[in-house]
């Protein structure tokens, strides 16, 4: 048998076969590098004069479940809704209500009847004219249980009916006085849709709702993006807008990019023009980058918080509540977890809310000495073997119930609360579970702390989260908005009086007292106000946040690519 001589010939053959393959591989690599290199940095001339035309690419973190904001009602929905819907009234930065689709209105003395005088030159993008019948159709749609409207429907519980007097006059009847009615009507959640479109099945309308706004929806590519194009007939922008007439942009591509680092990287590379929910860890990098601009605005309403369940031990004792709040070092947590980008919220209302009072900003400051004192006074003076406080052999235990989709940074913040309150002797147990299970625990009142926030442009939010009528479950599901279980007759009467009057000064005084009660009762551990944070690439200008909910408003925006 021959020696394995072929093996000796291998080097020659090997190099020959390799030579055949190397060029192909090499060119491919070079090509991809070139393509990669060719992208990204293009010099763009900035101009202050709006440019008509172009496509704006917008990236947000959450995808709405339905494009019609009447259905359910979550923040992603109102963000999209703001671009293709108009509202009956508008709200300016000072909180004053101005005209929009309704030119002017009268409120009856008893506060139960609102007469709206509507514009007559408005039509929806499917051709249907806007008139009083459209207003009636929309309000009825929100109030209809079949729509399954959690937010919009929840805001107009007092709504009874609308009378169509003529094409330009609609009379709305409420069951009880509701001074916040005009405020909620300014929100994108209650935007006006085409009545023709509303007659379609709910799920069809979720896909392709029709409004009268500066843009119209073309396509919803699930898990990927929503495409909007300009409405060429638009001529009824609110007085808070920067121009009138059609929008500057031809097209908006509204993308969903869940991962914060990926979203920011896309912005830096110029692949998207605007991103929402700019991650706190990237704020510094964004500021240092000359190609980027930041727009940050706080949202009105009830700030992000952990609401304490006052109906059961240990939080049925106000001293323990205050001790808990005072033993949590929220400022330290915000510095590390949120890179000091989020300010502390001390009171029950966010500073951007109308009638917010700054007097309660420091009611929750970190004071471990005071906490220790309060706990001793409350009888929790013993310590058990692990160092936690106890009373009559029972440990001072607090359960925080969290859903699965709580963002990791929020979780980390509560981990830090866990560590700092531990020093005061609290055993904080974080129970994380699926959203559905969390809702069940909520319905059963089986929690000590529940995380929450409420974005709305009215101080009436205090009624929803602390009013005794909201302790009762809203429906069979058992979810109750008053998570704290707080029930106080004086508080309720203050809130009702605030709803009964249209006078701003009176309302301010009443809401001040309401905030005082809520703050002094230590019903929540408020952490930071909700905010909208946009990162904008150099190609784009004119992006604004509308005042009612600090929602992105692209009507005045233009791109220069």
């Amino acid at each position, binding site marked *: *048998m*021959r020696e*394995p001589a*072929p093996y000796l*010939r*291998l080097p020659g*053959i*090997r190099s020959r*076969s*390799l030579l055949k*393959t190397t060029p192909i591989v090499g060119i491919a690599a070079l090509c*991809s*590098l070139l*393509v*990669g290199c060719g*992208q*990204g940095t293009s010099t763009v001339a900035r101009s202050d004069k709006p440019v008509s035309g172009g496509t704006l690419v917008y990236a947000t973190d959450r995808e709405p*479940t*339905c494009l019609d904001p009447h259905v*359910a*009602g*979550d923040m992603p929905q109102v963000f999209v809704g703001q671009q293709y819907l108009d509202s009956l009234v508008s709200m300016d930065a000072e909180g004053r209500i101005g005209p929009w689709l309704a030119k002017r209105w009268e409120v009856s003395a008893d506060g139960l009847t609102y007469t709206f005088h509507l514009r007559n030159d408005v039509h929806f993008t499917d051709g249907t004219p806007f008139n009083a019948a459209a207003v009636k159709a929309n309000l009825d749609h929100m109030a209809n*249980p*079949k729509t*399954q*409207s*959690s*937010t919009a*429907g*929840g805001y107009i519980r007092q709504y009874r009916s609308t009378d169509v007097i003529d094409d330009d006059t609609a009379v709305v009847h409420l069951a009880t006085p509701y001074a916040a009615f005009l405020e909620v009507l300014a929100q994108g959640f209650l935007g006006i849709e085409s009545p023709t479109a509303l007659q379609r099945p709910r*799920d069809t309308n*979720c896909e392709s709702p029709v409004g009268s706004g500066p843009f119209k929806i073309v396509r919803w*590519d*699930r*898990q*990927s993006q929503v495409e909007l194009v300009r409405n060429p007939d638009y001529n009824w922008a609110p007085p808070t807008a920067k121009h009138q007439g059609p929008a500057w942009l031809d097209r908006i591509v509204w993308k*969903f*990019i*869940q*991962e914060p680092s*990926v*979203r920011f*990287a*896309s912005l830096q*590379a110029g*692949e998207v023009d605007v991103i929402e929910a700019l991650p706190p860890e990237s704020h510094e990098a964004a500021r240092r980058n000359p190609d980027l601009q930041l727009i940050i605005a706080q949202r009105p309403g009830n700030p992000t918080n952990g609401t304490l369940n006052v109906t059961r031990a240990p939080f049925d004792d106000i001293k323990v509540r205050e001790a808990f709040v005072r033993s949590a070092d929220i400022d330290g947590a915000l510095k590390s977890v949120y890179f000091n980008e989020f300010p502390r919220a001390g009171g029950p209302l966010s500073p951007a809310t109308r009638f917010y009072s700054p007097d309660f900003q420091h009611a929750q400051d970190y004071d471990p000495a005071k906490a220790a004192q309060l706990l001793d006074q409350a009888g929790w003076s013993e310590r058990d073997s692990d160092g936690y406080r106890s009373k009559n052999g029972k440990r001072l235990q607090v359960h925080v119930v969290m*859903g*699965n989709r709580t963002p990791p940074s929020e979780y980390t913040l509560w981990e830090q609360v866990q560590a700092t309150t531990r020093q005061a002797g609290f055993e904080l147990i974080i129970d994380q579970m*699926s*959203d*559905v*299970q969390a*809702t*069940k625990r909520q319905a059963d009142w089986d929690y000590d702390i529940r995380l929450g926030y409420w974005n709305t442009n009215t101080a009436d939010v205090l009624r929803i989260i602390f009013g005794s009528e909201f302790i009762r479950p*809203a*429906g*069979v*599901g058992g*979810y109750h*908005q008053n998570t704290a279980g707080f029930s106080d007759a004086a508080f309720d009467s203050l809130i009702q009086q605030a709803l009964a009057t249209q006078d701003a000064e009176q309302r301010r005084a009443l809401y001040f007292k309401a905030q005082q009660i809520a703050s002094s009762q230590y019903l929540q551990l408020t952490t930071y106000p909700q905010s909208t944070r946009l990162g904008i690439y150099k190609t784009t200008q004119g992006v604004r946040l509308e005042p009612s909910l600090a929602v992105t408003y692209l009507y005045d925006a233009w791109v220069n690519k």
Partner: protein
Amino acid sequence: MTSASLSSERPNPRRERLQQLGRRALWRLAGGILVLWAVATLTFFALRLMPGDPVLAILGGPSGNPTAETIAEATREYGLDKPLPVQYALYLGRLVQGDLGVSYSQHQPVTRVLAEQSWPTLELTFTSLALAWVLVLALTVLTAGRRRWVGTLASLAETLSAALPHFWLGILLLAVFAFGLRLFPPAGSDGWRTLVLPSFALAIPLAGFIAQVTRESLDLTLDQPFVLTARTRGLSDFKVRFKHALRHAVLPGISLSGWAIGALISGAVVIEVIFSRKGLGRQLFQAVQAQDLPLTIGISLVVAAGYVLANILVDLLYLWVDPRQQGNAS
């Protein structure tokens, strides 16, 4: 696998073989349908066992404040007020007709969700598999049976690749090539450029795994008498490797490919999340989190069906490729 003794029956060995393949395919398909039934049943009861009221999942979660009428309406609409066995029977009935129901979280027919989300996952899976095989073939064929240090180095590379968790590799690739060097987009599902990094993240560990098996097999094959015979006949080394040895050597790799597709689909769940890609993997993960029963069952069925089919094909391919089954000399 089956042993085909074709040397005993001379007339029409090819037709025999095709018939045999056909019968096997039919038998496997029947089994496949049974499997799908079991999958649907398992998933249905699994998700029904989950604690919590699905109505609230449908109504968009805890931030809403649904009224009693709203909840009653939703319960009626989704048939959740009927007893469990009835729901199951109704569900199976609709399933047989091809109606997979309406997704709780997306409010659109499950079949539509599947249609939209299937392609990106398929794209990713097959690109990764193809890429893995390219890497495997390149590495093993060129380096097996050569000098010791070449083989050692290659073997080390393979073992290292196989040990890389795909989610870690994905994050690293993302950080280096997308965030750092900006060569590829960090997110998206359209265009071939969004496919590169995710495919590599899945292909590299798989390639390491298959390469180890194929290398060992190739080494063994190259030592076989028939290979030596081929060499003495003067066949070029290239021909020996590709035409003769490889055919035997890839058999274990091919049978692994069936398993590999399953591993790739599993991996796709995490990779799609990391790279923000559309696809069934990410969709399934979200559906399970949202306790969206119809969508979870729908995706599980599609994945199971695809996997069963892939395994049948791999099985048949194995029979086809295996030269031991052939009656003719190649």
